């Protein structure tokens, strides 16, 4: 187990280095120039060149790469040209914000998704089943930002009961921070929920066919125990796998949602960085996204082996 995790972690690290390199190479060919974005043309003779020199933009590729990697290894994420700051100082609060958003959405879609999935699996073909099916179909078919915009129109323009945008830290004012969280979290979950429901449903349908479910009935177990203890635990493996795969989708969705709701997270930072051609910042962000994805999938694998003893991690 431990050995397996170690192997995987080293795998992650290697992966991330390859990612770093890819990203770095990509960056070098991004059109546009951070310095120009910074000055918007209000520049003096030679100022641009001077700045490019200062930010090492004039150095040859391998040199820049070396500098950057060296920085990373010393735990220095690099320097954001747009903010004119150490990236680490910008990055951490944004990271926390995004994690807050993503984890809550994940939590919500699991909390809602599993019971709904089970219900529609148990009452296959019933009205509830049909309804859930159609809803989740619509959920799958709607771009996240459309959810966002429509939610804004309903709750902020017409009803005017929720704040449109922004974030309030929990340690500042719990009620406010929750109010700010509701819409973004919902619009992300709406995108993810269908996948959870559909998967739980199909897995459940498979599992419920098994003999040990019949044994469960024969033992005199209550339906609740049957579905939520015996069947669910067996069907979770597949569900978690899907969550692991769709985590990427979740991340992507979070970028757009953050944009719609002006959530001060990595997504907004990422777009800002792209717009301002802030190379090092983009590199760091993409790297982080890739890392998050890999790590989550590692965690997923570990959870497997906990849920299902038959899966041995070697």
């Amino acid at each position, binding site marked *: 187990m431990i050995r397996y995790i170690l192997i995987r972690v080293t795998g992650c690290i290697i992966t991330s280095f390859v990612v770093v390199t890819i990203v770095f190479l990509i960056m070098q060919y991004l059109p546009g120039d951070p310095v120009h974005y910074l000055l918007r043309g209000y520049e003096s003779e030679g100022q641009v060149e001077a700045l490019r020199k200062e930010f090492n933009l004039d150095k040859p590729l391998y040199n820049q790469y070396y500098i950057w990697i060296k920085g990373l290894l010393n735990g220095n994420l690099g320097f954001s040209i747009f903010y004119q700051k150490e990236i680490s100082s910008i990055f951490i609060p944004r990271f926390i914000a995004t994690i807050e958003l993503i984890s809550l959405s994940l939590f919500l879609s699991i909390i809602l998704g599993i019971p709904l999935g089970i219900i529609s699996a148990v009452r296959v073909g019933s009205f509830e089943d049909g309804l859930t099916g159609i809803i989740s179909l619509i959920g799958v078919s709607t771009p996240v930002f459309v959810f966002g915009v429509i939610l804004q129109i309903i709750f902020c*323009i017409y009803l005017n009961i929720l704040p449109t945008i922004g974030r309030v830290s929990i340690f500042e004012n719990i009620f406010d921070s929750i109010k700010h969280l509701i819409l973004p979290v919902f619009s992300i979950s709406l995108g993810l929920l269908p996948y959870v429901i559909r998967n739980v449903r199909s897995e459940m349908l498979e599992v419920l066919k098994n003999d040990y479910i019949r044994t469960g009935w024969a033992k005199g177990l209550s339906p609740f125990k049957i579905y939520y203890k015996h069947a669910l635990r067996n069907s979770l493996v597949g569900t978690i796998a899907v969550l692991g795969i769709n985590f990427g989708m979740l991340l992507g969705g979070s970028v757009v949602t953050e944009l719609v709701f002006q959530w001060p997270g990595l997504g907004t930072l990422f777009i800002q960085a792209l*717009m301002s051609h802030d190379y090092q910042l983009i590199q760091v962000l993409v790297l982080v996204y890739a890392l998050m994805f890999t790590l989550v999938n590692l965690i997923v694998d570990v959870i497997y082996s906990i849920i299902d003893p038959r899966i041995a991690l070697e």
Partner: protein
Amino acid sequence: MKKLTLVLIYCGIIVNGLYANNLNIGVQSFQNIDPIVTTGTDDYHVISSIYDTLIILENGALLPQLATNWEWLSEKELRVQLRKGVKWHNGKLFSAEDVKYTFDRMKPYKTGYSWFYKAIENTTIINNHEIVFRLNNPDSQLPWSLASVVASIVPKLSESDQIDFKNNAIGTGPFKFIEWNIGEKLILSKNSDYWGKVSEIDSVTFKPVADQNARLLSLRSGELDIIRQVSPDSIPQLRKSSDFDVYPALRHGSMQLAFNFNGGKWNKPVEDPFKDIMIRKAISFALNYAELIAVSGGLSPRVYGPLTPTLKGYPKDERTVERYDYNLELAKGFMSLSSLPNGFSTVLMSPPEYEREAVLVKEHLKEISINVELKVLDWGAIIPLARDPKVRGTEFGMFYYGRSSLTPFPPGVLQKNLSTYGWKPNMFFDVGFDRLFGDVKTLPIEEQMPIYAAAHTYAVDRRISAWIYQWSTSYGYSKNKIDNFESNEVWALFLDMFRINYIKLK
């Protein structure tokens, strides 16, 4: 128990948030708050309220601030007397040392707009309250330059209590820096022992909100009291409403459709259509300026040339400058006289913020059979296209953008349009102007004026660009909280800023 106390603290915060008269201002985004590093207008709002400048400019006139008075010793020497008894936010006394430090740290004039003070060779301290600026060549505009926020005076701190001016600030200004959570908010609070008029606002909270609608919605819901850049189409209804109003802060510059005299690779038969003044005139008459202004929010006055009435040197007699307005017949007439009577196709480049106006321009030019392809690029991508000697503007034929002058004097604007200096959105060169602007600053102010006027007329007559409206920034604010805005029209860096301590609350 701990939780409970926390909750109590929150409640405390909320309550005094309700009763203290603090101001919530919605801006686009912050970079950093170092006066000589940043280039973002939003940052300068913060800077201008934390720091003081030596001189301040109000409604076109220079007034003393940290400097009590100033005089030219020679063409190249300006002596400045400093105000006594001014305290920094950290309690230390303000002295000539700080001024010297401020201008020394600008060298080598690389970062931000510090190049603005290239003319300053060094500063010598006469005594604690007197300092002399020595210039490497005469610049009669220096006092005006000193009035810019970029020249905000920062304290000279001892090694022990150094701070990073990018994330933190100690000034002499009407507001103290409290805290800044990146991406969330930046808080200032009143400096009660300000040497000048103490503001009636207790604290100011800036919230960066990139999205226009979001800003507007939060203004409506009362989360914000002032917002920068109201989304244009909502301006009319906001003005109608009884609780809100919009204030157009005019900039020292005009929106223009610049023509690329270099031509481009797409129109082979004739090398570069925009060398033909007939075509330029045709276009200038084909644009429906009313629509363009309306789409931009309908607040900006129409201008006909590079100079705006707010700039020094704007022609005294407006009749000397030709006026051109939407007139399709005329446009078609000019087109038929031009070298390309059956039209041509070209590329129009525009930064994202003017996307919609660019779309309209495209449609207008269709009328005179000019087929326009739109290219919406951000500044970081546009400028290389315009300045890179290899490309030299062959990527685009027209460029829809706005320039504003960093001083009340127009050289910047004019040079961008007319001389070889710097990067050129329109590849028009006239060496004469180079010579002219080379030493214009050395002349005494009043002698500069006619030159500017002449340049203005020249540009308009030749239609170097089609000028559209005076560039402005719209500020939405809630009438219930704020008395009126006009009183705050203060020169800072661009004209489209205001000083928070001038705001009158209800």
